[in-house]
């Protein structure tokens, strides 16, 4: 893995230079599309950018130094870990990545939910605490099928390297694993029907209730990057890179945007589930599909012996 290639991945594609504008565009697309589906015109695509600028120009409420450090540090950590996760995405073919980068990728993907839980508790608001509890529970619930699907993919491809998994996992493993990952996608992006943690209005703003100004802007940025990373991961699984850089990039972008549109359609057409209902749904169907993927992976590896 060349240094140049890694730097390109981190800073240009699918890293920061691509991911920050793309993430903002995805958030804007989500809001506008949802408005259209609800019979409204919706905000212009520049809305998210102006929201971010406005938030950056607002002074956050003064806090005790220990609280302030946590409340600024946690969103920064989320942004940083998502930038790292994006750099590991095998969007383009080549010798990118290293053996075991799947483990690092999963670890980085799990940082924003963890930070959000800690942020909810650190903000010392009762709404933050309830939101944090919900986020913690739903993350644990959704990670059962998500991680099982990734284990199935790794078994099927016989490697813990993302690039090899994406190009080498057989379709009989990949298809059920992809379905399980897709089911977990709205949970990880906190969209309807799994918007339990941020639960707008119901819990004020969930874990982010006490966050304002620059700190909230950082959370928005982290959320935008989460969108790019998770839809991008699904995009690479659906269409593994072929080696033609331009074609791969175009396909990656298109599939990511299709993913956002599908998620918006789901979010606009469903209502928020309760924690028990969401758990039942994910564990009943997600675990079943992930179980099928695991069995297929095992079968493919051992030949049924």
């Amino acid at each position, binding site marked *: 893995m060349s240094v140049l290639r890694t730097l390109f991945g981190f800073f240009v594609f699918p890293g920061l230079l691509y991911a920050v504008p793309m993430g903002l565009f995805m958030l804007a697309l989500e*809001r506008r599309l949802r*408005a259209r589906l*609800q*019979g*409204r*015109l*919706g*905000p*212009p695509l*520049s*809305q998210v950018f*102006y*929201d971010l*600028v*406005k938030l950056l*120009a*607002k*002074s*956050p*409420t003064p806090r005790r130094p220990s609280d302030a450090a946590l409340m600024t540090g946690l969103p920064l950590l989320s942004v940083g870990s998502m930038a790292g996760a994006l750099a590991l995405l095998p969007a383009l073919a080549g010798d990118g990545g290293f053996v075991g980068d799947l483990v690092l990728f999963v670890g980085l993907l799990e940082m924003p939910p963890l930070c959000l839980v800690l942020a909810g508790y650190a903000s010392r608001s009762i*709404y933050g605490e309830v939101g944090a509890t919900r986020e913690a529970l739903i993350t644990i619930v959704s990670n059962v099928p998500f991680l099982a699907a990734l284990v199935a993919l790794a078994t099927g491809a016989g490697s813990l390297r993302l690039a090899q998994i994406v190009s080498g996992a057989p379709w009989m493993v990949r298809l059920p694993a992809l379905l399980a990952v897709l089911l977990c996608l709205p949970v990880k992006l906190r969209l309807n029907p799994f918007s339990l943690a941020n639960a*707008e*209005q*119901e*819990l*004020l*703003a969930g874990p*982010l*209730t*006490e*966050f*304002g*100004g620059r700190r*909230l802007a950082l959370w928005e940025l982290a959320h935008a990057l989460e969108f790019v990373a998770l839809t991008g991961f699904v995009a690479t699984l659906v269409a593994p890179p072929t080696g033609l850089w331009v074609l791969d990039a175009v396909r990656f972008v298109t599939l990511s945007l299709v993913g956002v549109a599908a998620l918006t359609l789901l979010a606009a057409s469903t209502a928020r589930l309760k924690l028990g209902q969401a758990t039942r749904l994910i564990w009943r169907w997600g675990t079943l599909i992930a179980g099928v993927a695991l069995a297929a992976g095992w079968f493919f590896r051992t030949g049924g012996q």
Partner: protein
Amino acid sequence: MNAPERGLLLRLTERARRRSAWLFHLNAGSCNGCDIELVACLTPRYDVEQVGIRLEGSPRHADVLCVSGPVTGNARAALAAVYEQLPDPKVVVAIGSCPATCNVFAGSPMIDGPLDRVVPVTVYVPGCPPRPHSIIDGIARAIDLLASGRAVAGEAVR
């Protein structure tokens, strides 16, 4: 306030404030009439999200505090606390006749209003209840004052 003299960042900030106003709605003893009219602004017919206005769940996220109701004794402390929780710069929009004059509740021993005895009000939107058009107009005026930095605490535009 000459436009060319100000820096790019200042102009961008002003533009962003003008185009992205997040509201926090507080019911200070309202009969729910004005509250319904405020929510009507979000429906497909009026759709204020087109101009970036969004109803937020937390006062920490908001720029505009929309208050309805004549400010009852119970609501007074909550109102003062919520006003403090909005990060600067902020404006207050009084929705309906109640926060402006206490309306039919004037003189009641249960009422600590009108609103400007508790927090400085930027714009009054009269009506019982005001129509969504008037509310949108009031919010637009408040945003204009907020963005251009002319929203002075305690000074109202009627």
